[in-house]
């Protein structure tokens, strides 16, 4: 007996001294990191994707302690367990040993009838839960979703059969598209031209070169544009009359009847009647709508197209600025710089540019680019728009410039790494054959290093797509009325403000008027951003790995 326990103790001591427990603890560090990364991605994916999946619509019958019966219709958003004592004040009856109560978060929509469109239901109070087939969710342009039953369909004042619903919806959709094209493209172009005329006139006034014939010319053009506008306005009114012709009469959960005009309806779905195939199709439709549509309801609904567009455009501009700059700096550091103090200083500068907090770049961009450079540009070239600034205010160009400086070190480091992997033999061979240094660079070195340069650019893009702090100061807005690229001359408007996916997440999550409604949208946008950035990174890493393999073989 004693021997065994001695052996047992000896075993433990030996195990301890071998260091094995510490090794396992350090392995635990790896596991925790892995769990957190993968867990985070899974969390965003599941919460983000569930936003698009058409959920079941339920009807709940509740009975509370006072004997009041209520009916609630909606989608289940969340469920949680809370300690029973936190609800003790509601007077709810608990089972003898019950420590926790489960509750469900239901989205009830119907913003015109109830004050909050989300509601918590306590599971013990739920008498019954059914999923009737006729329950419908109506997605609208204003006031959010409506959940209820369709009572009647009214076409031009007369009640008609519900089977005509799809055709009426299609008709309204077509007209809405025409209205939007009319407003955004045609009328927008006229407004833009009118503004440019005004600025031209003001410029002449400031230069004292306004002659009576010029005045007459401007007046004539303005007249013409105004007439065009009146024509378009008439067309718009006619279209508006068309879409307000039909209505839908629906019944909400408390029995109230509401009339919804077709012009407000985007989609009508009988979620409970959809099978797996229908739901998958609906899912894909929602995902594409998210990417292609404009936002509605103060960014709490709709799509994120302007944010995607703004991010892409800004990143493209930034790439155009940073690529030549970064590649040239890397070439200098690798090919031309001597082994002296200046080079050491330069390398320190590159490291520091990488380490400076991004907000400092934002501050620098705001003070130097926006106010100093932009202000001077305004004084020199855009004096006629003053006091309203053109470039002396945050915009897409200054954002691109600021982010170019921020991502410069990424491009430099990556390009340098690519240049250093090229065997010296290639350079020597080319120089020995009589090529100048620049020819060697241009014809031999750069083409071989181009995958590394591309890696650097992709990493820079991934970084720029995710940086928000500096952009908050130099050009991003919550809601941009128009895109920086449109059909009006000069087509690319570098002075306009834009929307950004990362900032959109911050804004919708923390500065939106209806946090519960906005939350799923935040997850969906986060999922989109993470997908873009992770795929960019993985592309860059795989290119880099392939390069390493290729050069390992070259060196042998």
């Amino acid at each position, binding site marked *: 007996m004693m021997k065994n326990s001695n052996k047992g103790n000896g075993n433990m001591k030996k195990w301890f001294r071998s260091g094995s*427990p510490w090794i396992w603890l350090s392995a635990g560090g790896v596991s925790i990191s892995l769990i957190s990364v993968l867990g985070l991605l899974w969390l965003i994916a599941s919460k983000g994707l569930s936003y698009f999946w058409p959920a079941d619509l339920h009807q709940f019958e509740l009975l509370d302690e006072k004997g009041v019966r209520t009916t609630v219709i909606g989608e289940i958003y969340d469920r949680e367990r809370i300690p029973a004592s936190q609800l003790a004040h509601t007077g709810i009856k608990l089972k003898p040993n019950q420590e926790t109560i489960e509750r469900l978060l239901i989205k009830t929509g119907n913003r015109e009838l109830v004050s909050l469109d989300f509601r918590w239901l306590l599971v013990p109070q739920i008498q019954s839960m059914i999923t009737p087939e006729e329950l419908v969710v109506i997605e609208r342009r204003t006031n959010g979703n409506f959940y209820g039953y369709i009572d009647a369909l009214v076409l031009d004042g007369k009640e008609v059969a519900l089977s005509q619903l799809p055709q009426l919806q299609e008709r309204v959709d077509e007209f809405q598209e025409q209205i939007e094209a009319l407003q955004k493209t045609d009328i927008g172009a006229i407004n833009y031209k009118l503004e440019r005329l005004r600025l031209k006139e003001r410029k002449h006034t400031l230069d004292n070169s306004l002659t009576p014939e010029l005045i007459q010319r401007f007046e004539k053009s303005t007249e013409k544009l105004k007439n065009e506008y009146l024509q378009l306005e008439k067309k718009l009114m006619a279209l508006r009359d068309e879409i307000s012709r039909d209505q839908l009469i629906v019944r909400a959960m408390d029995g109230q009847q509401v009339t919804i005009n077709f012009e407000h309806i985007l989609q009508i779905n009988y979620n409970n009647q959809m099978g797996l195939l229908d739901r998958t199709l609906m899912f894909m439709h929602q995902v594409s709508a998210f990417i292609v549509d404009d936002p509605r309801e103060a960014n709490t609904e709709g799509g994120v197209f302007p944010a995607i567009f703004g991010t892409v455009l800004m990143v493209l501009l930034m790439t155009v600025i940073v690529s030549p700059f970064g590649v040239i700096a890397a070439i200098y550091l690798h090919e031309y710089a001597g082994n002296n103090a200046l080079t050491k200083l330069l390398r320190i500068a590159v490291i520091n540019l990488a*380490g400076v907090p991004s907000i400092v770049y934002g501050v620098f961009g705001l003070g130097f680019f926006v106010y100093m450079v932009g202000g001077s540009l305004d004084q020199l070239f855009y004096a006629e728009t003053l006091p309203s600034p053109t470039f002396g205010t945050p915009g897409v160009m200054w954002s691109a410039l600021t982010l170019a400086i921020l991502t410069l070190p990424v491009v430099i480091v990556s390009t340098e790494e690519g240049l250093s992997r090229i065997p010296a033999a290639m350079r020597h061979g080319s120089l020995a054959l009589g090529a100048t240094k620049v020819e060697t660079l241009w014809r031999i070195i750069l083409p071989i290093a181009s995958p590394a340069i591309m890696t650097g650019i992709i990493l820079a893009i991934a970084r720029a797509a995710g940086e928000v702090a500096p952009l908050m100061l130099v050009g991003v807005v919550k809601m941009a009325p128009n895109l920086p690229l449109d059909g009006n001359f000069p087509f690319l408007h570098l002075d306009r403000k834009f929307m950004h996916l990362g900032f959109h997440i911050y804004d919708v999550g923390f500065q939106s008027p209806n946090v519960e409604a906005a939350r799923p949208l935040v997850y969906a946008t986060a999922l989109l951003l993470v997908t873009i950035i992770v795929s960019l990174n993985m592309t860059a890493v795989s290119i880099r790995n392939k390069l390493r393999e290729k050069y390992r073989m070259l060196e042998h």
Partner: protein
Amino acid sequence: MTIAHNSSGTRKLKNSLAKWLITLGGISVLFTLVLIFMYLLYVIKPIFDSAKIESTVSFSTKKSNEISKVALSVGLDELKEVAYTIYNNGMVDFYQLKTTPEHKVGHKILSTNVLAKSNQLRLVVDSGVYLKLLVDSQNNIQLITPSFKATYTEDAREIIPSISYPLGNENLILDEKNKGLSQVAFAMTEEKAMFVAFTEDNRLIKTTLLAEDDFNYDPAFETNYQEIDFSHNIVDDILVTPDLTLAFVRSGNLVSVFELDDEDDVVLKAEIISATELTTMALLSGGSSILLGDSQGTISQWFEVAAENGRQFKEIRTFTTSNNEAVDLIVTEQFRKSFYTLTSSGVMDAFYTTSEAQLWQGSIGNTQPEAFVISPRADGLLLINDNKLELFSVENEHPEVTWSALWQEVWYEGYPEPDFIWQSTSGSDDFEAKFSLVPISFGTIKAALYAMLFAVPIALTAAIYTAYFMTPGLRKKVKPTIELMEALPTVILGFLAGLWLAPLIENYLPAVFLLVIFLPCSTLLTAFVWHQLPKEVKNNLPETLAPILLIPVLLLAGYAAFSLSPVLEQYVFGGDMRQYITNELGINFDQRNALVVGIAMGFAVIPTIFTMTEDAIFSVPRHLTSGSLALGATQWQTLIKVVLLTASPGIFSAVMMGLGRAVGETMIVLMATGNTPILDWSIFQGMRTLAANIAVEMPESEVGSSHYRILFLAAFVLFVFTFVFNTLAEFIRQRLREKYSSL
């Protein structure tokens, strides 16, 4: 050969041109960094400049054969283009201060007499910038306001002055008994005008004029006379606060403070007794502080603070004139808390009270001027002495910011004691902006330290295992996955921390503490169980697969912790752990606190530390490890005593770069904390960091103001901090690389 020769000229040219261009491009990287540094300094520098005061315009107000008159008061318009003087013979003269197409400097635009007969003016009392109360030798009292109208012609602007009477043209009867007044003070709002005066027969009276409508439109009023219970026979100075609540009456070295808002009775609120001989008294802008000047050249500032037995007037700070001469006059600015002192030999000092800054000192003449005034926008000084009118320009943009005001405790008006406060804006107009960088720097350090507390153990242990114990196959998969963390935008980490993690921690608070125990214990338990397993199983599941084996174990431990949390909360903490720690332990709990930030920012910093530590450990030459193992050490002993020691500079520099990153992080802190600028180490309280502060306040600050420049200063502090850390880390890593290549 021939081809090369023919085009060698252009090729050589292209080569040199390219070389210059590329060199320029390379150097411009250094240039960018220097530009950022210089620009930040350029914006910051003005806040540390002292005031610049210089004489710009001066001329004589006396024509050759006029008799000398004594000036009792001067004033000027907002644009410093027209000045006016009120003489003791009742004349009010307006002079041109700026050359316009119509007039030259010194031209007398207007001259009017405000006294009915040829009486002598005895007293002119100011209130605010424009109101002047005139008392003449026959005890006729008038209230006048010089007003200025700007008219615009082709290219120029002309200011046309005039005099208006806000309380009507008739004489004001301020004393019921119609005795002469030896001292008067007053203040006026739209609804009331209050006068406190000391009469010739030693009575202290208070007279209130109640507007029938609004004094801005209608001078009609009702009068209410009151007498104040006052036992002293002399009164040297009287002051009334602009909000009509207090009157300060100085008799010698005693200042009596009276409450004026009661219509029935005037109550003596406090008495301030000075140890030294007082010479003058003035009210600071805002009407809360009183400045007392004495014969030794000391000016003391007093305001009310909350003490144990109610609110009391306390001496807060003192200032001394530059030549220690007696203070003859203290003149305060209208909108800022700065003041000027004048001595009898013409020496002037400018001070700012809150930051205890001495802004300027020098001489503005040989004697004290007859009349002295600060321009309405505090950008000029006007004085008249011996018929010479002189205008000074004052450049004093940022008096409230000094190095000590930014970093030391400051005693603000209304606070019981000096404190570190950051409060840059508020809703009311009489707000004093409080700029102390200490709470927000503290917040930065607190956030960084908590982040390192979470990140360093996990990152170091993960790096050690990955670099040293892991098989190459597994390493190829694990390393990129962990490096993926670096690519995640911090916006996403921040929003998850604020919207998901913070409520989760708040609801499952016991789970957090359970996890700290469960995770290591379950790891050790798994280690022990594995150790006891038979050899065949051990061969199939080698120790090198430990990270993978641990994943389900840790997940299970986490699930257990979260399931037990409500039970624990119910039984041990009475149903709500939050309330328990607030009520029983006295620790305040904020939903978005340092714990949430620590976890979220730790997550963001882990990949930075991991990558570099892993690199450092992996690059330790193999022969050191082999040698140690050959001599009989275990794997772990080799690791601790040989490998880690050799790689320690690399590990140190990795931690420093992680710290640098944590200090500069903006979005996570912005979204996961309450952004409260408090000085509290508690893990359950929020904080405000330098970076988040800049992001929040910069879009709303006025360009060029002190606030704007201080935000740039915060950015500069961050810049210098990360510069020092990154450069140091890079030096260490360079030395390490050289050391390895020699090993």
